[in-house]
């Protein structure tokens, strides 16, 4: 909106900027400065770094300015499995979070509407995990499913896992951890849209011969779609870049690394800044493309 206000001011018929545009500019300035300083500068820097070339001296962590586009090819080629894995994990975890969150959000937003105390209590429960550090929660999961834990032994005893199979270190553990950690990000937007759902529309559906299931798919779900879209975006984007759950120090193993882990390793372990930067830029570009396609397909452009 502010952009529009500015645009009108500067392209107005009078030479002097209108009062409205001045106000808009003043209001906009802190945000623009903030974005410029903390988003654009690092982004430009990231792109510049991603094109650097190794220093002639061969010292570790030394790079010279260059225009080495092949860094991208190298990163893509070397780390394709992790890139693909990131998106596969992110899609599965997002879907799982959606399947778990929707009924919760529906219950809190629709069924518990007449009981504000219960509603508030359940919402608190959804947000409660945020009161504990992300790392600690993930760590707790690691303890619960450690190899000698009762939970793992139970799964082995009922044949879900073979005797030499374990939970921690598996793709399942990582996806479960990702799902768990991002459920509130999915639940809250869906709750918000369901909370506004006019239940009279649901009654209208049943009045017009639709069974509860048909009413859900034809009325309730389409009306909660904005919440579902923002929930999936809020979940999918951070999951794609997550490096805690998949880390070997947490729920991951030696074949669960995601892009985040690769970036971390390249940045901090082997000081390969160009590759790390190239991966970051590609991850960002891939997410922008995926999200635009998704939002366009789902017909909720106004969210962007």
């Amino acid at each position, binding site marked *: 909106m502010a952009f529009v206000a500015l645009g009108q001011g500067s392209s107005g018929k009078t030479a002097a900027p209108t009062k409205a545009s001045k106000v808009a500019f003043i209001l906009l300035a802190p945000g623009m400065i903030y974005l410029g300083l903390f988003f654009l500068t690092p982004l430009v820097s990231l792109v510049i770094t991603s094109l650097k070339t190794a220093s002639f001296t061969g010292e570790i962590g030394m790079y010279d300015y260059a225009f080495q586009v092949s860094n991208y090819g190298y990163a893509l080629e070397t780390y394709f499995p992790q890139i693909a894995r990131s998106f596969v994990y992110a899609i599965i975890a997002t879907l799982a979070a959606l399947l778990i969150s929707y009924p919760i959000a529906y219950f809190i937003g629709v069924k518990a509407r007449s009981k504000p105390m219960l509603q508030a209590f359940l919402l608190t429960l959804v947000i409660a995990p945020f009161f504990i550090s992300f790392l600690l929660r993930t760590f707790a999961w690691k303890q619960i499913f450690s190899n000698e834990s009762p939970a793992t032994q139970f799964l082995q005893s009922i044949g879900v896992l073979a005797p030499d199979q374990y939970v921690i270190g598996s793709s399942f553990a990582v996806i479960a951890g990702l799902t768990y950690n991002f459920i509130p990000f999915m639940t809250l937007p869906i709750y918000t849209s369901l909370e506004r759902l006019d239940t*009279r529309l649901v009654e*209208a559906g049943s*009045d017009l011969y639709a069974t509860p299931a048909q009413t859900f798919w034809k009325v309730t779900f389409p009306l909660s779609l904005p919440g579902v879209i923002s929930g999936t975006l809020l979940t999918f984007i951070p999951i794609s870049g997550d490096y805690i759950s998949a880390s070997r120090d947490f729920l991951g193993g030696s074949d669960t690394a995601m892009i985040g882990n690769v970036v971390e390793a390249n940045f901090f372990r082997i000081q390969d800044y160009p590759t790390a930067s190239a991966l970051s830029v590609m991850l960002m570009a891939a997410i922008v493309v995926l999200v635009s396609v998704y939002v366009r397909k789902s017909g909720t452009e106004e969210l962007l």
Partner: protein
Amino acid sequence: MATDFVARGQDLELVGIRKEFPGFTAIENLDLKIPAGEFFALLGPSGCGKTTTLRIVAGLDEATSGKVLIGGKDVTSTKPHDRPVNTVFQSYALFPHMTVLENVAFGLRQRKVADPLAKATEALQLVELEHLALRKPQQLSGGQQQRVALARALVNRPALLLLDEPLGALDLKLRRQMQVELKAIQMEVGLTFLHVTHDQEEAMDMADTVAVMNKGQIEQMGAPEALYDRPKTAFVARFLGQSNIFVGDVVEENANSISISCNGQKIAAPKSRSEKHTGRVALGVRPEKATFHEDKPDLDSNHNLVGPGEIIDIRFTGVSNQYLIDVPGFGDITVFAQNVGKSPVVELGAQVWVSWKVEHAFGLSDLPLKADNDEA
């Protein structure tokens, strides 16, 4: 699907319906029968239980006890989507994510009726909105939305069409227009309409039969004219139009009439128009049936006469003037006088007598409560 695509309306019968909510009883033992093809209005103030009744008929609420029969078939435990009933909701409840046409076709698609879009278009033609078929509901005006809601319900040819104050949100002009259209459509398609409203004019204007509901019970039911002409309870007398009500003990009774003594003056009513003939009785008369006189008239025994009193308020409503006359011992009496061109007939503060024919008086079965006065 449990229902057939019926062409004619069916009758509705409610037997001993009772609905309790935590803390209060919304409906007490309600019995009601609506013949097929009738336009039936359920009239009452908000909170009287009329909307709850409608929701029980639609299946959206479950009665605590009692039975609902449609076309003689017990549908008490039938789910709403299996009942041959459609509702025009007070809020219209149009699906905001669908076009007008898709809204109307919704019920047809659910019942897998052949060619739903063509039938929906026909229904939109009936309400003269086919040119807006591809708009979204929120792009339509209130009256247009109301007509879409009507088309969406009508297109299913339900045995029974429920209307939940569908005109409540419209302005007066649009409401009048819609009332005419609704009535015309009902006549044309021959469905049974159950219309819930708190607007007595609307109910009387459109319905074949009106049931006045109060505190979970039907107070009186009948044709609009009958209800207006002979209200049987103080509530009906005051909710349906206005009434002047006088309370007193019966002091005289003959073959044709009863008389009460009210502040030393006798007021009579025909026996045939009175519910109670002994003890303390309330008699009433409609304001337009009363006339006032600047000089004390000399009237026969077929008239009641009270006064003198002072005119304390005169209101001009266009077609008539409303006079409020304070008669000592009788309280305020309202008199409507036809606007015949020279007004006001009398000045504020004038001393007048009020008279009306005994045959226009009616006797009530109960005594007015203070609360009823406020609603009149």
